[in-house]
């Protein structure tokens, strides 16, 4: 339930955040996912348009990941094999959604039913503590703590479950001017289990971000090619 709520929350925020500020975006990305057992570094290009995301992974393997509403498609051009995940909830790419949240003054949290409970002054900025007003959210989440530096840039987001248990913390840095906006080029999310052990660490480094860029036709019209071996999975 927590995952469903968080995923819905992130997607709604990204939709709200994306609103008038960023309609389309293209970026070169490097994503490192580390678990206690292994680490995988992927490189590729990310396209964002019409609330959809196409992630063209070029290394270590050719892969196309397409997030669209309730479906996630993963296509392997080399073997012409694909997985089509149909979910009851909207599919999202959390690392990228965080980037979209940073362009909103309050990460869009107020519109999502969070209220600002208090502000704490820190040495180099402030921490804004948001708590859920929605009863269903309150059962899962205790608070969102957003740290903003002296320049008004979001530097970290910490999510706490009931009992002040740290669920995840996201460090956001390397802000650069991109169009009329200042966007972060490095996002690192660490997720913890109930015992406080690190479960995963997800780092996304972005380069060559172009806001409101022209999206190639092949990307806009992406679909699984005919003749591909598709395995459909309903969640």
């Amino acid at each position, binding site marked *: *339930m*927590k*995952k469903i709520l968080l995923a819905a929350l992130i997607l709604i925020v990204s939709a709200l955040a994306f609103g008038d500020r960023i309609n389309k975006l293209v970026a070169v990305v490097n*994503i490192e*996912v580390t*678990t*206690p*057992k*292994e680490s*995988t*570094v*992927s490189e590729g290009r990310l396209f964002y348009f019409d609330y959809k995301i196409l*992630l063209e*992974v070029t*290394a*270590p*393997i050719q*892969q196309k*990941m397409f*997030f669209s509403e309730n479906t*996630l498609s*993963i296509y*392997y051009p080399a*073997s012409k*094999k694909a*997985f089509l*995940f149909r*979910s009851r*909830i909207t*599919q999202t*790419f*959390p*690392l990228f959604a965080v980037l979209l949240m940073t362009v909103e003054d309050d990460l869009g949290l107020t519109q999502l039913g969070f209220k600002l409970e208090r502000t704490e002054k820190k040495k180099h900025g402030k921490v804004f503590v948001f708590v859920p007003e929605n009863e269903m959210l309150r059962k899962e989440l205790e608070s969102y703590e957003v740290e903003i530096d002296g320049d008004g840039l979001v530097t970290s987001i910490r999510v706490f479950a009931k009992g002040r248990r740290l669920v995840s913390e996201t460090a956001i840095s390397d802000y650069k001017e991109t169009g009329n906006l200042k966007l972060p080029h490095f996002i690192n999310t660490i997720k913890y*289990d109930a015992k406080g052990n690190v*479960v*995963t660490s*997800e780092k996304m480094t972005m380069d060559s971000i172009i806001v409101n860029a022209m999206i190639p036709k092949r990307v806009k019209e992406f679909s699984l090619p005919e003749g591909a071996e598709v*395995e459909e*999975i*309903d*969640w």
Partner: protein
Amino acid sequence: MKKAFFMLILLAVAFSGTFMSAEQNVIIMGGQPQQQQSYSSGGDPITASAIAAATHVNKMMWWGAGCLFGLLGVGAAYLIEPSPPATMLMGKDANYAAIFTENYKNTGKSIQTKYALYGCLAEGLLISLYYLFVIILFAEVTDDLYYY
């Protein structure tokens, strides 16, 4: 009598609670880990998916569902399949993705169903204790009336 009843309730809750606080053993399903086979993107998908599912599935929530909704909660736990996080499949080949997805789904479903069942059993135990208390109370009251 009231004291004994509440003590029995506490025991029932504690009994159910031991399952939840027990070590979160990784459940490896879908056959033995294929240590001989190497994947182009490295790592063992069966172990990775089992650990991921054990971590991501909300055990408390499913225990609560079993407790509140009984067998309906258990049924829902069996039918609702958890979805793996997309980042875990990034950079992984098709073979890895297939095995990871299948095992994540099965392991997650197994954990959900297990904890929903624990919740259901706890609910059943509480209800049984309640009826036992009522029967004992009734017996005592009727005994008193008899002696009068």
